[in-house]
């Protein structure tokens, strides 16, 4: 990410949405990059220890596992300055999702038309929209399967790490996740992504850290974009493909040759 695009994101936010970002950020993120957060702070990032669906241990395993899948500054030194699933409170998002039918209205579809992040005085998105009978039927089945997968998935991750995933080393955690027991890592990663980059009303993307890390402004109604923002270049932002990006480019080139 270049300084240019980051600056533009912050400028755009200055009218309403992202100006207060620094204040919204968990204090841990303002620490020096790479510095290990104290245990109490790491818990606080994940919110209160009250869960709709998870047991305390399940929540801890899901928090630590998603932090391996989408690591932040305390999970991988390479992610200095780049918040991850822990900072975005992805575990809260997942618990909210698994318990979404226990709310009234159910927490499946956030409201609209606007949040209060782009110049609208109230957060309409915080008022969820109740399900139709058909949707409620589908979600009951979907959630029953997911809840069971989480129960079993946490047990499997514990088993693969000598009994307690949360006490395992990073290497052991990664090895367990790479095993993808009964497809649990795939399911968890998908949900972690949803919690990382969705509107924060669903419980994740706390402080908009997910969007900030990828220079995405998120929802912009009712302000929208100006004609100039739509039609003109933001300026050079060179990227030299390396690592997985280079692998992707190579794969495309190889595929074109075939």
């Amino acid at each position, binding site marked *: 990410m270049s300084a240019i695009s980051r600056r533009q994101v912050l400028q755009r936010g200055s009218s309403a949405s992202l100006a207060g970002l620094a204040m919204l950020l968990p204090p841990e993120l303002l620490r020096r990059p790479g510095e290990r957060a104290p245990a109490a702070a790491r818990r606080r990032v994940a919110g209160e220890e009250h869960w709709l669906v998870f047991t305390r241990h399940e929540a801890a395993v899901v928090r630590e596992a998603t932090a391996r899948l989408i690591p932040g500054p305390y999970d991988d030194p390479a992610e200095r300055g780049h918040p991850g699933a822990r900072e975005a409170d992805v575990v809260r998002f997942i618990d909210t999702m698994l318990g979404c039918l226990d709310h009234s209205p159910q927490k499946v579809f*956030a409201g609209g038309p606007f949040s209060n992040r782009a110049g609208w005085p109230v957060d309409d998105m915080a008022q969820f929209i109740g399900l139709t009978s058909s949707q409620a039927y589908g979600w009951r089945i979907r959630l029953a399967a997911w809840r069971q997968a989480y129960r079993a998935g946490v047990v499997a991750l514990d088993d693969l790490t000598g009994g307690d995933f949360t006490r395992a080393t990073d290497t052991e955690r990664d090895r367990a996740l790479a095993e993808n027991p009964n497809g649990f890592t795939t399911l968890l990663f998908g949900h972690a992504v949803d919690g990382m980059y*969705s509107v924060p009303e669903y419980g994740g993307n706390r402080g908009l850290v997910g969007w900030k890390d*990828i220079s995405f402004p998120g929802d912009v*109604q009712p302000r929208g*974009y100006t004609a100039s923002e739509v*039609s003109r270049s933001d300026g050079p*932002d060179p990227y030299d493909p390396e690592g997985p990006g280079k692998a992707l480019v190579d794969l*495309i080139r190889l595929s074109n040759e075939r």
Partner: protein
Amino acid sequence: MRTRVAIVGSGPGGATAAMVLAEAGLDVVVFEKGANFFTDLTSERPGTVFSNDELKDDRSFAEPDSIAEPRVFRTSPSDSNPFVGAVQSLPQTVGGGAVHWDAKTPRYWDIDFQKLSLLGPLPGAAVEDWPFTYDEIAPHYDAVEALIGVQGDVASLPELTLRHAPRSGNFPMPPGPPQYSSLLAAKGARSVGLHPFPAAMAINSVPYAGRPACNDCGFCSGYGCPILARIGALAPLRRALLAGAEVRERSVVVRVGHQGRKVDGVLVMREGGGYYREHFDAVVLAGNAIESSRLALLSELPDPYGTTGRYVMFHWFTDASGLFFSERLHAYRGRDHTHDIDDFADPDFPGARAAAREAGLPYFRAGKVEMGGTDRPLGEAHQYLEILPVLSPRKPFGVPFKKLMRASLLRDRLLGLTLMGEDLPYATNRVDLDPSVRDWRGHPVARITYSPGRYELAAQAFYLPWLVKLLDGAGADVSIAIPQDPSKTFPIGASPVIDTEHVMGGMRMGTNPRTSVTDGTGRHHQLDNLFVADGSVFPTSGGHNPTLTIMATALRNSRQWARSL
């Protein structure tokens, strides 16, 4: 007593028919299976709960739930592994398919309406002329464009487009701001001799009919418009309501009653459970090509030649992507894309006739290309999840994932092209009722049997390299065109079903009851008071977005129904 008409479906076709019939003085009830996500539908600018929320869209907020209301897809009757789930899901909500669209509204061409007589037959396909010509439908196009508010610029349209779809005047509104990504694509298109132009779209570029100009929030294709700068089917629906029509949301028509050559009413399931019968003097099916065919089959409407549900067509979409290493293209701002080319819809495109002959075809066409779109963060992230085991086999998560998200090759640095290929009517491509899968209400679901023919595949193969050439000309550092093919040639983006939401055919218009279901006005051949007002009446698919033509056809046909009812 006024004549009572039931219209099944509140999307573009149903709403247009409702407007015409209600304004003709008929007593119209519009049944909508889904919920209503708008406030007062009689106001110029209703409020809504649609929003810039990608997860809401991923969770099928306004579309059928894939568990509660699945469909079945198979490539042939001998397909041993049919897919059950979301198949070509269009919105199921008041406003229908015109709720989720980015409202591109090109006209079909003269050669679409007279494909058989102007271009000739094709082996294995039931190519027909439409019951009307371009000249006859043109005034209805004008009327619909004014009704829903279309932006565009006649002076920028290529000669090819104007030759095949001439216009009596300019568009109701000028084009809005061009997207940077689309401008790059337009440059690329020109560099290889193609003819880009600002796309026609039913989105306000200036305040129009009491609604605001679009502010380019970027959540366009796939999303309900939060500010109603895109009104779609709600414009005719409003006029229907003002003329006395009623809209009943969350009301599922599960059977159409009939006796002899007449339908006599509908059986409706309420949201809370329980059914009721209601008498109507006429019924209009407008649930979309798949659901109207399904309802006809569920109702066991007379079908002496087994034509109901046949000749179903989906545009054969081919995606291409150019990746840019020098800058970000921010295609997440805007109206999905703002520029098109029509060159590939021309059967006489240089080299196309020769390539067709080589494939054993007298000719082929693909269709228009939409230029400049991209994905959003959740869509991008889920693509990386799919491909990370290939890119980073030792650690398919963690830092490699986050690096991909920040580099954003598949979103912020991506320029997307979508080619919508014409899809021929084949008797073997059809909708019927699945013998075992039922929806949550206990009714058999639609089963789609579909495979492309030689025509679609040959046209795709011919135009694929052109998409790459165009992207190279636009300045992409690396480009890829991904054929739509269940054989999965590239490890991402592969879908078990044909990836399209353009659904047509199934109850097509025609003069011969052996090869069509409805007559030259969309009236059922076997039932004098049953009409069809959605894309299922299309005899051929064209190579352009179908909704404007669905509305213009519904307008033309329902004006004739109004005279007979």
